């Protein structure tokens, strides 16, 4: 085929058009974030970063989401494994249910949780025997974060399990491994990266949760709630630094995530 000058022109026009359109959306994403950092003065930024209330709320947020993620690793990996390996009737319904937290308004998720874990309801009463309450405290924040962000961990782990040929487990069995040994020595380590990246996604999503946390536990204040409160009580200027710090933290988490995803052993 002879490539004429016209063809080159057409190719270039196409490229130019695609890139220009891409840039519009990128600007929409990047400009507000950058603008936020320039909106506030470094002074206020610096001051906010040293305020006890701000520091406490950020640590509380990171810690609560971390605990939620740990609990979900423990409970969610068996679920992800079952969904990947076993066939049972109504499986696809369960898979849809798992994704419900992604699509419902998170305030609604908070309300739903309240009807079970609220002090006057059955789940709440059961746990109050054990001395645990879920409203207006750390435990409430944890279950709110867990509920809305667990699909990330479960789905990602399930994807990982799906990629692992069942015959690895079969070979392990013939080599003398019990089902438990083949799970802990073969399948789990092979799925390490998927679980880790699912956990990071879940953690990041938990950190940014606002709606459900607001309903279950306005206090102690997590960072997103604090941002909201500062905005409504003191205005834009005072909410911006906290928001900025949160964005920096979540960006770091996601960069880590990308590094891990690049190292996936199963994909090789």
């Amino acid at each position: 085929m002879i490539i004429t000058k016209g063809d080159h022109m057409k190719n270039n026009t196409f490229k130019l058009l695609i890139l220009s359109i891409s840039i519009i959306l990128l600007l929409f994403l990047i400009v507000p974030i950058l603008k936020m950092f320039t909106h506030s003065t470094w002074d206020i930024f610096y001051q906010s970063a040293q305020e006890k209330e701000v520091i406490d709320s950020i640590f509380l947020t990171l810690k609560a989401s971390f605990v939620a993620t740990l609990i979900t690793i423990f409970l969610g990996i068996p679920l992800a494994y079952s969904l990947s390996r076993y066939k049972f009737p109504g499986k696809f319904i369960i898979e849809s249910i798992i994704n419900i937290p992604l699509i419902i308004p998170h305030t609604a998720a908070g309300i739903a949780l309240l009807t079970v874990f609220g002090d006057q309801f059955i789940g709440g009463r059961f746990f109050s025997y054990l001395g645990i309450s879920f409203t207006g405290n750390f435990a409430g924040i944890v279950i709110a974060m867990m509920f809305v962000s667990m699909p990330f961990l479960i789905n990602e782990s399930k994807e990982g399990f799906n990629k692992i040929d069942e015959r690895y487990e079969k070979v392990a069995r013939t080599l003398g491994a019990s089902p438990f040994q083949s799970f802990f020595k073969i399948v789990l380590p092979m799925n390490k990266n998927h679980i880790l990246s699912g956990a990071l996604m879940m953690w990041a999503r938990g950190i940014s949760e606002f709606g459900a946390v607001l309903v279950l536990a306005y206090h102690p204040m997590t960072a997103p709630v604090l941002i909201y409160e500062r905005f409504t009580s003191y205005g834009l200027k005072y909410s911006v630094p906290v928001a900025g710090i949160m964005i920096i933290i979540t960006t770091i988490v996601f960069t880590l995530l990308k590094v891990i995803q690049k190292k996936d052993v199963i994909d090789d």
Partner: protein
Amino acid sequence: MINIKNLNKKIGNFELKNVNICVQKSEYFVILGPSGTGKTMLLEIIAGLRKINTGEIYFSKKLMNEIEPEHRNVGMVYQDYMLFPHMTVKENISFGAKLKGIKNHGNKLNKLMKDLSIGDLAHRSIKNLSGGERQRVALARTLMTEPEILLLDEPLSALDTHTKAKVQDQLRNIHDEYEMTTIHVTHDFNEAIHLADRIAIINEGEIIQVGKTDEIFQKPKNAFVASFLGSKNLFNGKVNYENIIQMNGGLKISALVKPKQAVNFMISSENIILSLEAIQSSAKNSFKGRVIGINKKVSIVEVTVDIGINIISHITYSSFNTMALEENTEVFITFKATSVHIF
């Protein structure tokens, strides 16, 4: 050693039907059949990785049906080896031996790695091993656990021709050295000829024929076996009078056969004599025909002759050259009535 009785297993639309196999101790037993006929499933059943619907599996007279795979002392090597990607070569090989608490496993590991010439690979990641190396690592990993029975699922099919020939010899050597009862599953009859003491032919979940290699090749039980083994000259006809097969189109073939409506038969290409003139002999079948096809193979020439039916004869290159055969050459085809194999 391995005795499978009336085994039935159904998964979805697929079914293993009434499988009966008896494998002797230290035998190299090949299960040969087309893809998707239940060969791998059968191996997994023997390994205990799949439960069966009905039937019994015995290892040396012990009923194994309910025994878990880790307690069967069976080694399995899959087609694509299934080496654990998160372990080094050495870790892979010692995985099972550690679990099973094999004594002295360090020495055994070194010997095996040396025997299989993978000693240099010990600390390599398995990601950058060649196909042949992976194969040997997978074998070593299995052999380390000292299995009584070795199950090989298409172990050569992922290898290139050159490596395949080498690994094939290696498999047979390992089998002979360790005297391990081996069941090898494949769709390639060349592999079967090379390796097997006995062969079982499987099709659509049923064992069609079990026997020594030459037995199966010379006396295939039915047309499927014959055609799967690459046999030529498969025909059908009917027998109105004893010892005469009547073909469509009027051709009559002498064979040892009782009268019946439909008969399938095979005339082995090696048993057909091709000549330029009619020959006087004890052979009952002699026909005049015309060469319609010449297909040159590595060591023989496959000549197709139209005698009313298209019949294939294998002749050597020297005969081919002496006879100066070309398409349309008039020739005679001769074979004995006893060379006609009736199914």
